[in-house]
């Protein structure tokens, strides 16, 4: 019996990746740092930190607090603004050659539109991820992506403009299915599930928040079961939507679980901060698992889970 040709390649609604393992937003630096640390050609894709119209100085330090199963963080979307990003960082990313998804953020509809417009046609931009976890300055609400009508409006505007695939990153810590459906109807190519849920860390000696900014967000292994639930629920609601699992994916076993739950790819965040080569070793681990099961592609894992569900 000849073995089927095995490939890790995935097609995320037109965005072709050589492996289903990406580096999550905010964990990949500015384009120069990773080159000496990991073989970037073996990383499926990279999501940049969130880029806004104007430069943002970011939150006051400290920006991170360690917890038993992750980190509470608040970096305040520090970034140089879209013009400086295009001038100073995008050329380094383009040289890297790994498919690049630029995370687009803002506090108003106009900001999302202006960042998307500035990125339009820029070489080296293979996709856009819409960050919806930030505050809504325009409507004065704490989280932009918590409201179905706002998600429809912003994802719709970006998706209509963009010439590259658009992935909407759903905020964590809330009922994700209604906003996922809204983002899909508004024209998103795929969905990233999910962003970090809101969290808090207390410093008992100062009797204040550990973080300079006050509140923060939780990332790390604690999130994996939440991510799997979001993937499973949204897979049921939107069976054909490409889903990227984000939150608590730290090993090949975690990635396999996410693929079985219905994800087409995974994003690695905290694990890549601990070991920048984690996305490569996770991809290798997926290959080993495919071999063990005599499967030829990650998509077959997804299909196997469906078949098992139907059979029971």
């Amino acid at each position, binding site marked *: 019996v000849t073995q089927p040709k095995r490939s890790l390649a995935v097609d995320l609604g037109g965005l072709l990746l050589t492996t289903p393992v990406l580096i999550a937003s*905010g*964990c*990949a*630096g*500015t384009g120069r*740092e*990773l080159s000496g*640390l990991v073989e970037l050609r073996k990383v499926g894709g990279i999501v940049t*930190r969130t880029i806004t119209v104007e430069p943002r*100085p*970011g*939150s*006051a*330090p*400290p*920006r*991170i*607090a360690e917890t038993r199963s992750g*980190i509470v*963080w608040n*970096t305040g979307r*520090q970034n140089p603004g879209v013009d400086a990003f295009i001038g100073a960082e995008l050329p380094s990313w383009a040289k890297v050659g790994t498919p690049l998804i630029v995370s687009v953020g803002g506090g108003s509809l106009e900001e999302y539109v202006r960042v998307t417009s500035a990125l339009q046609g820029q070489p080296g931009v293979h996709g856009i991820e819409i960050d919806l976890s930030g505050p809504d300055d325009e409507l004065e609400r704490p989280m932009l992506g918590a409201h179905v009508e706002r998600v429809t409006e912003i994802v719709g505007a970006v998706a209509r403009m963009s010439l590259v695939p658009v992935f909407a990153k759903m905020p964590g810590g809330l009922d994700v299915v209604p906003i996922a459906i809204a983002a899909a109807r508004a024209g998103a190519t795929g969905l990233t599930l999910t962003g970090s849920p809101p969290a808090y860390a207390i410093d008992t000696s*100062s009797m204040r928040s550990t973080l*300079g900014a006050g509140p923060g967000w939780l990332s790390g292994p604690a999130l994996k079961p939440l991510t799997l639930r979001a993937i499973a629920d949204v897979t049921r609601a939107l069976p054909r939507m490409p889903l990227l699992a984000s939150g608590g994916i730290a090993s090949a076993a975690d990635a396999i679980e996410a693929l079985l739950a219905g994800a087409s790819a995974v994003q690695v965040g905290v694990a*890549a*901060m*601990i070991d*920048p080569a984690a996305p490569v070793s996770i991809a290798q681990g997926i290959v080993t698992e495919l071999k063990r099961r005599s499967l030829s592609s990650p998509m077959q894992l997804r299909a196997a889970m469906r078949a098992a569900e139907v059979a029971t």
Partner: protein
Amino acid sequence: VAALCRTRKLPAQVAVEERMGCGYGLCGTCAVPVARKDGTGWDHARACVDGPVFNPARILWDRWPSAAASADVEENGAAV
């Protein structure tokens, strides 16, 4: 040290610490407020790759709460 060198007009360099996420310049966690060379303002520099050694005259100490907190502790003798 920064204040002493400033009053005595002595050149100085300080190695700083801030809580780090990755240590490779990837995550932007270890932010230190540092004035730009051209004097147009300041940015949060990364202690891990942009530092950890900075010219103390360019650090915006009053914008850096962690540094203020550790200075308090040292003055009170609670830690060395």
